[in-house]
């Protein structure tokens, strides 16, 4: 039995190392004084954090990622709310087919989807790059938005809305005054999650960005040319940013079993 448990502890240590070391290591390197990434880090400096703001491509990429994430999540949520409401409230033929269609973007490998959209939207339909990028992001975050909105509707009992209608409220009024406030938390959490997915998305941005580059692509390009602690410093800030957002989303709504 002791042999078994020491075997398990070895596996646990290995797993924790594999899962956490690539996250912890950039954090330590970011404060190192040497120009080249080296280990163990020497000295303590914040200059790489300043440096990250000096590169226009990185700053512009951050702004673009914020805009795209914000716009794509807003649109995805605005479209997911009525669609989930229809799936939740009404029963009709072909409902399961429609549910599967909404899940389809997550079954398609992102890199394939990105390439197909490049041919279809940019080469064939001649969409401007920014519009194609936005549409691509909306498409990949739709399954996440739907999942959160639908889950928060399921938790709501159908009776409250029916009660409002039977007391004389117009259905639209009942929806806005009764349903929306009750699923508000789910909507906020869904928005944050969609934003983080869009903010971190890589392939879709790589294939659909012409000219203006979202942050992950700008970082990728930077890494191909330079290997200094700037990207480590930027990584620190981004880890803090996305982890905080995700924890807020988890706090607002717990999605166990959905």
């Amino acid at each position, binding site marked *: 039995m002791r042999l078994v448990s020491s075997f398990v502890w070895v596996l*646990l240590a290995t*797993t924790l190392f*594999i899962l956490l070391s*690539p996250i912890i290591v950039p954090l330590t390197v970011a404060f190192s004084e040497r120009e080249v990434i080296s280990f163990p880090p020497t000295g303590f400096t914040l200059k790489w954090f300043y440096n990250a703001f000096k590169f226009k491509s990185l700053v512009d990429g951050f702004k673009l990622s914020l805009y795209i994430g914000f716009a794509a999540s807003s649109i995805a949520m605005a479209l997911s709310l*009525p669609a989930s409401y*229809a799936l939740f409230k009404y029963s009709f033929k072909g409902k399961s087919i429609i549910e599967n269609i909404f899940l389809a973007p997550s079954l398609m490998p992102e890199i394939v989807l990105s*390439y197909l959209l490049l041919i279809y939207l940019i080469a064939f339909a001649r969409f401007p790059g920014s519009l194609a990028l936005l549409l691509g992001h909306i498409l990949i975050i739709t399954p996440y938005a739907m999942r959160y909105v639908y889950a928060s509707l399921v938790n709501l009992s159908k009776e409250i809305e029916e009660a409002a209608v039977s007391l004389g409220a117009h259905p639209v009024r009942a929806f806005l005054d009764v349903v929306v406030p009750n699923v508000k938390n789910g909507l906020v959490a869904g928005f944050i999650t969609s934003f983080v997915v869009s903010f971190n998305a890589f392939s879709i941005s790589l294939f659909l960005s012409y000219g203006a580059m979202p942050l*992950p692509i700008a970082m990728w390009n930077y890494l191909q040319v330079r290997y200094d602690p700037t990207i480590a410093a930027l990584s620190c800030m981004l880890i803090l940013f996305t982890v905080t957002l995700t924890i807020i989303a988890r706090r607002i709504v717990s999605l166990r079993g959905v």
Partner: protein
Amino acid sequence: MEKEVRIKASITQLIPFFLLLPLLTLVFVLLFGSVIYVLASSSHSIAVSMLEVLPSSYFISAYITTLKVGLMVVLLSAILSYPLAVYGRFVNFKVERLLSVVVFIPLMINPLIRAFGWMIILGREGVLNSILMYFHIITHPLSILYTENAVVLGLLELFFPFMYLSLYSSLENIPEEYILAAQSLGAGTLRVFLDIILPLSITGLATGASIIMAGCAAAFVTPSILGGLKVKTLSVLLREYVDIFLDWNVATVIALVILATTLLIIGVINLVKKLVMRW
């Protein structure tokens, strides 16, 4: 009057349709539209390049690399997560409490940052080599970065959580009474494992394996950063044909192969799961 009522009733029936329409149109036009457009507009040139690409050595070697890397990741993540999940479920609940938190941390962080972290760890003057040299375990730095092993490690970090979570959820569904019953009838630990735990958790293993294989076939950032110029998986090859060689006929063939492989893996594993459930 009656007519008015009927019209009103049919309008009411259309409400769900109107609510679904915007999102349905978007997904349909973009997702299915792009697939149909690509297949319809260039079916002839796709067929021609398919005959040229599929037997070529660069394609076959990329395909084999992708499968090999995927299988290694499945194997390693199963070896790591199976004992941990079983131990956490039946022996020491603290292990599960720890892992259920830790497993979600990487999922919040951009895969690009995690691949960059591996670069710092595995590089010639990286963390791993510095530590091994410091303790005189090796005299020359190992070259791990830009090899298949680096890609396997990076993808293992990316996909381990999915294997663990699907294994644990299948173990969670095994009632403890089954095990107590077997033990009271005299079954030893090994017997309990082979006859109860293993058969009842095989679907979790299959789900995890299919998510990982499909994920490895489609992953791009991790193999492109950790594999350098040497390790070419299908998705790395696809991007080269789009951006560097500018040969979109070949790129289309590669994209379709990735898609077909992914769907095939998901299909086969679902079939296996169904057969196992019936049996």
